[in-house]
């Protein structure tokens, strides 16, 4: 539970995610897949990789990812919308 950065972040609940990678397809500029298939933040400090900063132009795609993740593993935290 790292201190989330200011501004909206995409929080990954690792206890739910099974690494099929749907989110990485929707957010290729924010998330890559690690060698086991799990989403990994492309930028940001290594210790903040459970809370991926969302830039405004990715907010819609991030919202889609939250809605489409089959395991409800994603949440947007700190959004003003």
């Amino acid at each position: 539970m790292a201190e989330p950065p200011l501004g909206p972040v995409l929080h990954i609940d690792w206890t739910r995610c099974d690494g099929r990678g749907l989110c990485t397809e929707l957010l290729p500029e924010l998330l890559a897949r690690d060698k086991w298939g799990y989403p990994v933040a492309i930028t940001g400090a290594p210790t903040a990789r459970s809370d991926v900063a969302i830039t405004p132009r990715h907010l819609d795609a991030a919202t889609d990812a939250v809605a489409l993740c089959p395991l409800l593993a994603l949440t947007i935290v700190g959004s003003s919308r």
Partner: protein
Amino acid sequence: MSGTAVAGAIRPPGGLNRLFSAGQDADYRAHLAAFGALAPSSLTPELVDELARSGLSGRGGAGFPVARKVGAVSRHSDRLWARSPVVIANGAEGEPRSIKDSTLLRHAPHLVIDGLLAAGAAVGASKLYLYAPAGSIDYARAAARERKDARSIVFVEAKDSFISGEASAVVNAIENGIALPTDRIVRLTTTGLRRLPTLVHNVETLAQVGLIARFGAAWFRSLGSERDPGTRLVTVSGFVPQERVLEVAGHTSIADILESCGVPLDGVAAVLVGGYHGAWIARDNLTANLSAGGLAPHGARSGAGILYVLGRHECPLVASASIVHYLASESARQCGPCLFGLPEMASLLERLATGDREQGLRRQLEALTQSVIGRGSCHHPDGTAGLVLSTLSVFAADVDAHLTGRCLRTAQPSRRSNG
């Protein structure tokens, strides 16, 4: 709050023996004789200010300032909305190299109970819990039966696992009977057990609260240093005549602690400080003291006060590999990077330890640590990666030797039938 208004002839403990000054297996009578009763005047919200003045930090591992955590819970509680907080005394030390919490619950359970009652009163708690593994909880329960003011404490037995003492696992265990960490986007002090503001404090932290509630912040600060005031418990194990729990001032040097345990310093290769999620400190640096400032240059923290001593004759890579194996087996297997990454790390380190000379091993291990850090619902992957990185850097010369087919510690080729 007056820290000195103590009933009768009770004097605050002098010297380094504070927590155990009521003696071995102290019952309520011995406890009262040593410390006196907890005055009702100390069971108030003003205790938070006294805790702030004392500078007490958590003794369970993270070392967070106690007053700030208590203050956060108070801020998030709201009596009108029935959001009165919960306080949990956490005695599940989990770390195989720590016995200080079980020792404390056995010999000074009343001090822990006092601290729990005082912290509860300070935040206006609706419910108090004491969570500890099988052996220890019986001592605490028996102690609570000796006194009238402890009837409301609920005792919950902790599972014997590395991760059972992690704060969110503690809350999960009490609420759902599952001692596994949960994903959190909000702090426990805001919403924890049954969505109430929740204060989880290590039992030693609470025992110190029990003393500060009586004798005040100035007394607490009369030992230790400005930035690491008071005393703390440490467990010394490994290459030591006997595993021991010691109460030391906050800024005592590691070398002094080892010497008082009868460890010959020239026989020591390194000390693992802070437990299995900690960092190695090589023999040349053992004059470092246990305070945050003393340990930071060596990438270590005192954590739960664990000092695991490695003898000069032992191969540090073999020792580290077996610890990482243990940590991998204790992954709660909920989070992918932890579930897959930790066993891979363990087996790479084991290959290095047992004499595999593949030159890429070091780089692969480093890369693997980067793939797990920050990618779990608790700090288990981060802590395990930290230990691996510490091993590779403090024992860099051993790694080099292993990669050329030698072991510096045994003066023999490192490829042996088993480590």
